[in-house]
C-alpha cells in the first residue's frame, strides 16, 4: 500500500512538473514535485522506499526531459540521502522544518544535476548562473515541499495508513 501510494504521488508529481512551466525568474528552475515525493519517502518511510522512489522518479524526470537516463536519479538519490542523514538527527514534521529541508535538498539536487550536465557538455551555464539557479530552486523547494508533504500525509490519513517512522 505504501508503495502504491508513493507511486501514485510520483505519477501526479511528474505530470504536474511537465504541465507547469519552469519559474521565469532566478535561473528558471522547475517546480520540484517529484523531489518532494522522494523527500517524503526519505523522511517517513523505510530506506528501500526512498531508493525505489529516487530511481523511478529519476527515470520519470529524465524521460520527460532531454537529460540522459540516470542523471536525475543521481540527483534525487543525493538529495534524498542528505534528507535521510538529517532525519536521524533533528527532523520534525513542522512546516518550517520541512520548508528548510525542502530548500536545502532542492538546492543539492540542482547542484548535482548541474555538475552532471556540465561534465557531459549538455548545458551552457556559468558557476554564477548555477548558483543563482540553486537559489531559485531552493526558494521553490521551500514552498512546494511542505505543501506536497501535507497533501501526502492527508491522503495517508484518509486511507488509514500509519506512517512508518523507521
Amino acid at each position, binding site marked *: 500500500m505504501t508503495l502504491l501510494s508513493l507511486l501514485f504521488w510520483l*505519477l501526479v508529481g*511528474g*505530470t504536474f*512538473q*511537465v*504541465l*507547469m*512551466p*519552469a*519559474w*521565469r*525568474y532566478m535561473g*528558471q*528552475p*522547475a517546480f520540484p514535485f*517529484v523531489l518532494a515525493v522522494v523527500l517524503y519517502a526519505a523522511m517517513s518511510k523505510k*530506506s528501500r522506499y526512498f*531508493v525505489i522512489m529516487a*530511481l523511478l522518479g*529519476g*527515470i*520519470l*524526470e*529524465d*524521460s*520527460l*526531459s*532531454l*537529460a*540522459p*537516463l*540516470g*542523471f*536525475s*536519479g*543521481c540527483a534525487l*538519490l543525493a538529495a534524498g540521502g542528505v534528507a535521510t542523514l538529517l532525519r536521524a538527527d533533528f527532523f520534525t514534521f513542522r512546516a518550517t522544518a520541512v520548508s528548510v529541508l525542502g530548500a536545502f535538498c532542492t538546492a543539492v539536487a540542482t547542484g548535482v*544535476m548541474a555538475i552532471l*550536465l556540465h561534465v557531459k557538455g*549538455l*548545458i*551552457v551555464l556559468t558557476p554564477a548562473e548555477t548558483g543563482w539557479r540553486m537559489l531559485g530552486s531552493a526558494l521553490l523547494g521551500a514552498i512546494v515541499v511542505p505543501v506536497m508533504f501535507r497533501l501526502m500525509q492527508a491522503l495517508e490519513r484518509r486511507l488509514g495508513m500509519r506512517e512508518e517512522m523507521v
Partner: protein
Amino acid sequence: MKDRRWIALCAIGLIVLAILNLPDTASLRVKGAVRDGLSPLQGALRGGVREVREIIRYVRGIGDLALENRALFEEIVYLRGEVRVARDLERDNQMLRELLGFSRRFPTRLISCEVIGRDSTGWWQTVRLDKGAESGVAEDRAVITPDGLLGRTVAVSDETADVLLLSDPTCKVSVRVARSGVLGIMTGLGGAPGEQPACRMDYMGLTADIQEGDEIVTSGLGGVFPKGLVAGRVTRVEVAADGLYRTAFLQINADLGRAEYGFVVATDADLQAAAKGLTEELTGTKTDLLGESAP
C-alpha cells in the same frame, strides 16, 4: 547491520551505474515508453486547462464577437486573394526553375500538433507535442506556428516529440536578413520564453547591411530548416566584443511561452516511413491474431 548497509549501498551504486550505461537504443526505448505512457494523461489535463481558458476568453469577449467575426471574414477574403496570387507565382517559379535546370525544392507537408507539456527539469527550453514517429514526425525537423518558427524536433518517440525552442542556447539556426540577404547564425539567449530579446544573430561582417526592424528568415543552409521561414525581427545591432563582426539581437515572432499548437515540417519521406511502419505493425498484429485464432 553495518555490512547490510554497505551491501545495500553497493547494490544501489550498481543499479545507478547500470542505468547510466544503458545502450542508447535501450535508453531511448525506456524514455519513449514512459513518455508515450504519460502522454494521454498530459493531453487530457492540458485539454482541460485549455477548455477552461477558452470558456473564460469566450465569456470575456462575448460582446466583441460580432466585430471579431466581421474582421475575420474580411481577413479570409483578403487571404483567399493572396493564396490565388501565391499559387500563380509558385507555378511560374517552378516552371522557371525547371527551365533553368534547378532542382525542385524538396516537397514538404505540415503535421499539425498540440503542445501537451514542457521540459520537466527546466534545464532546456522545450515543449512536447502530441504526435510522434507514428504520425510522420522525425528528428531534426522544423516546427512552425502561424507567427513564425518555433524550433526543431530533438527527441521523437512513437506518440510524442520534443521541440527545442529557438530561445534555448543550444539551438542554432542558419538565418539571413530578408531585405539584404546577409547571412548569420541565430543562437538562443536562454531567457525565459516570452522575454525579449530572446535570440542573437552572430558572425556578420562589420559592413553587413542590417538594421533595426529587419525581418530575419531561415537561410536553408544546414539542411534542418527549409529556406524562408520567418524567425524574428532585429531589435538592436552592436559590434561584437572582439570587434571582428556585428551582432544583432532579435525578437522572435512566435510566442514561445504561450504556444499551444505547432506544425512540424515533414518531408514526404517521413510520411512514407510512418505509413510503412503502420502497415508493418498492422500486418504483424494481423499475423498474431491469425496465429492465436488458428486451431
